[in-house]
């Protein structure tokens, strides 16, 4: 509390808040939103509202600095303040794709409304500026023509410069993006609308096109519309098109089913994969052991699996903005490391004395799947994060440039290449427009049965994932991981399974007929006698 007051006094002394400082302090002291803010918001946004709370350093993007009144999600023109409803909406629903959660269920309506007015006391802009919401109209219906027009307008407006040809946030300008406070920021991956800061509906997307996301590189297209470069209708078409790239957040299912096929495809581009069911595995930053990683680039991976009598193939598909190591991303890598690990990153010591950015060695993109070494008999599984010394995990790893390796995980960050002949693991990888697709293939039966899993039919085997985006500064324990999921190899139903009930039915019927027949015969005989 005192910190906030002192901070304002300091500003007043500097003449930065000449007239309003004392009024603002008085206004803040008694504000009903203050206790709510200090309890629930200050941890990230700071008591003084400058976005520098204790937890802020672990976040990318950083928490909002309220003193500049710069709000991303607005219904107002770029450069304008948000309406109260705009601020309330973000408090209620949070900001997908960031650390900001929604508070609708956690705080009362009164508390949330008090927060809105309290946040406004952090900036003098709210004392003088007026706000006017834009009337966005309603979304026209989508159709094939609308989507096609949207696809074309996406090109003419050059959205691909930042968001990429396929919308995966991998445009040519992506590596240099930064937010208003100079922190690196990624263009949205348009194929994942559930990560859009302002929401993923067609209306949300259209509104962000019109208003821009102030404080980020995303500009407003209202001026362009008024200049006749794109019509209102065309902007709606772009919104529909963008929405069509992604859809809704896939539901993560615990059991990945490997389907049985005649043959197993080895190539990621094999058309056989189009018929194989895909399973979404969400990934989160590894924050269990140091070095921890709060800025993961990979949000999830699609998993498909197929097996025949001999082999199993697993295709992993995930979005990644570059084929690391890519020199055009090396500055991005340094900047991410600098802001996420100012005291831990390699080269940090040098940075303290010279002010130069720490140098981070280039690292390749990589992905790993691990399993227990043998199918579990009970509920017990190895430690989900790369196992431990007592109970190691058996890992498949693929690295851009070097390809496949089998390893034993003896604990977080300790993937040791498996000695010996190995078990015949191969990989094939393709990178296309911001997306990796990698097929792992191996015989079902392991050669090194002590260390490597033989895939059993019909039994669910635990598996977990870890992805590294090298150009995002990720290697070692810095990256994105999942908890345990399961892989289940389905088998075609054996013929005996159909025959047994049939035989049972026939047998029962036969015995029945025989018994009844005999009984009837006996009855007839006794009647006759």
């Amino acid at each position, binding site marked *: 509390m005192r910190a906030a007051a002192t901070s304002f006094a300091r500003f007043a002394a500097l003449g930065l808040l000449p007239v309003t400082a004392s009024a603002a302090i008085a206004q803040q002291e008694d504000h009903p939103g203050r206790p709510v803010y200090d309890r629930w918001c200050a941890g990230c946004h700071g008591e003084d509202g400058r976005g520098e709370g204790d937890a802020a350093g672990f976040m990318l993007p950083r928490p909002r600095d309220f003193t*500049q009144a710069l709000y991303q999600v607005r219904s107002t023109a770029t450069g304008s303040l948000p309406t109260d409803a705009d601020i309330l909406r973000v408090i209620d629903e949070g900001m997908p794709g960031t650390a900001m959660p929604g508070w609708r269920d956690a705080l009362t309506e009164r508390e949330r409304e008090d927060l809105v007015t309290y946040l406004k006391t952090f900036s003098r802009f709210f004392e003088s500026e007026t706000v006017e919401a834009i009337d966005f109209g309603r979304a026209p219906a989508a159709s094939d023509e609308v989507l096609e027009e949207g696809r074309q307008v996406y090109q003419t407006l050059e959205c691909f410069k930042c968001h990429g040809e396929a919308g995966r946030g991998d445009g040519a300008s992506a590596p*240099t993006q930064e937010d208003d406070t100079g922190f690196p920021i990624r263009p949205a991956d348009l194929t994942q609308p559930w990560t859009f800061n302002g929401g993923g509906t067609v209306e949300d997307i259209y509104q962000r096109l019109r208003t821009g996301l102030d404080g980020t*590189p995303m500009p407003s297209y209202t001026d*362009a519309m008024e*200049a006749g470069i794109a019509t209102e209708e065309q902007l709606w078409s772009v919104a529909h098109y963008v929405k069509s790239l992604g859809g809704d957040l896939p539901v993560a299912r615990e059991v990945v089913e490997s389907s049985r096929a005649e043959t197993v495809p080895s190539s990621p581009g094999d058309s056989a994969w189009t018929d194989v069911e895909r399973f979404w595995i969400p990934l989160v930053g590894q924050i269990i052991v140091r070095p921890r990683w709060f800025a993961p680039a990979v949000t999830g991976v699609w998993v498909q699996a197929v097996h025949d009598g001999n082999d199993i193939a697993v295709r992993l598909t995930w979005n990644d903005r570059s084929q690391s190591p890519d020199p055009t991303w090396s500055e991005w890598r340094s900047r991410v490391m600098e802001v996420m690990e100012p005291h831990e990153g390699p080269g940090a010591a040098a940075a303290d004395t010279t002010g130069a950015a720490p140098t981070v060695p280039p690292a390749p993109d990589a992905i790993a799947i691990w399993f227990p070494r043998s199918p579990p008999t009970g509920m017990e599984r190895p430690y989900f994060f790369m196992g431990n010394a007592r109970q190691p995990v058996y890992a498949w790893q693929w690295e851009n440039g070097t390809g496949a390796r089998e390893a034993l995980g003896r604990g977080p960050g300790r993937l040791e290449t498996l000695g010996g002949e190995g078990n015949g693991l191969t990989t094939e990888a393709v990178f296309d427009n911001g997306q990796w697709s990698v097929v792992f293939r191996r015989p079902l039966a392991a050669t090194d049965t002590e260390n490597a899993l033989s895939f059993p039919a019909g039994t669910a085997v635990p598996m977990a994932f870890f992805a590294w985006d090298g150009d995002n500064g990720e290697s070692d324990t810095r990256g994105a991981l999942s908890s345990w999921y399961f892989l289940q190899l389905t088998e075609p139903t054996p013929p005996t399974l159909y025959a047994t009930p049939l035989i049972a039915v026939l047998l029962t019927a036969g015995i029945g007929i025989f018994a009844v027949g005999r009984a009837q015969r006996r009855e007839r005989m006794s009647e006759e006698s």
Partner: protein
Amino acid sequence: MRLTRQITGLMSFLAIAALVACGGGGGDTGGAEGGGETATPAGTPPAAVADAGSVNGTIDFTGSAPANEPIDMGEEPACAEKHSSPPTRETVVANEGKLANVFVYVKEGLTGEFPAPSEAVEVDQNGCVYIPHVIGVQTGQDVAFKNSDGLLHNIKAAPTENRPFNISQPNNMTSPRSFSAQEVMVPVQCDVHGWMEMYIGVVDHPYFAVSGDDGSFTIENLPPGSYTLEAWHERYGVQTQQVTVEPNGTATVTFAYNASMAANAVVPLGTPIDPHGHHQAGDR
């Protein structure tokens, strides 16, 4: 049909707004004659003042200027073609001991109100660079951001005393914007082309100038009196100097910059060193 009506409505609204704006602007600035150089970085010469004098100044530079960072325009061939020599940034433009792109303005000593000129100051985006790199503008006066490249630029202004904005210009067009509060300087950046940045000095009077390639600047029509002049350079920082303008006189000033002043640098846009303090050089 509904859309057509909306557009028609919007057009008529804009037409009315334009009429109102033009009418108002004309009334405000009766004394803007002599403003033939409105598109230059220098301020619009203000209305004639009795016994007005002027300041003629030079920005000296000693030491060896660092080479400006070359710009790789490989991703924009259309822009690369517009440059006869390999393009570089304009962080330090020094020739024969003179420093260009220094914004000089009267910081203290003025009284009265100064209506904003109706003419806009133009900033052109041509060849994926801003021309000019540094401008001055009066509060309330329009800056006309022009896109002559016909490809996507965005104009992100990051002031702290004024409201920041971010406009997309996917093709040839011009967007006028103005600033309501004095602020030295307002950084402007294009996120599509990370190398594009420029600075706008916003002051609430017409007495400012930007040094040319020969390091010279002129502030005209100053009422006689004593003033504090401030000079701002993006790399070498801020200096102030007292100057007295006699009636009908011409005061001569020299600001001396040298290469070792780089420590005073305004932190360039986007460098995550001090996110909150980097626009304040002109205010202290």
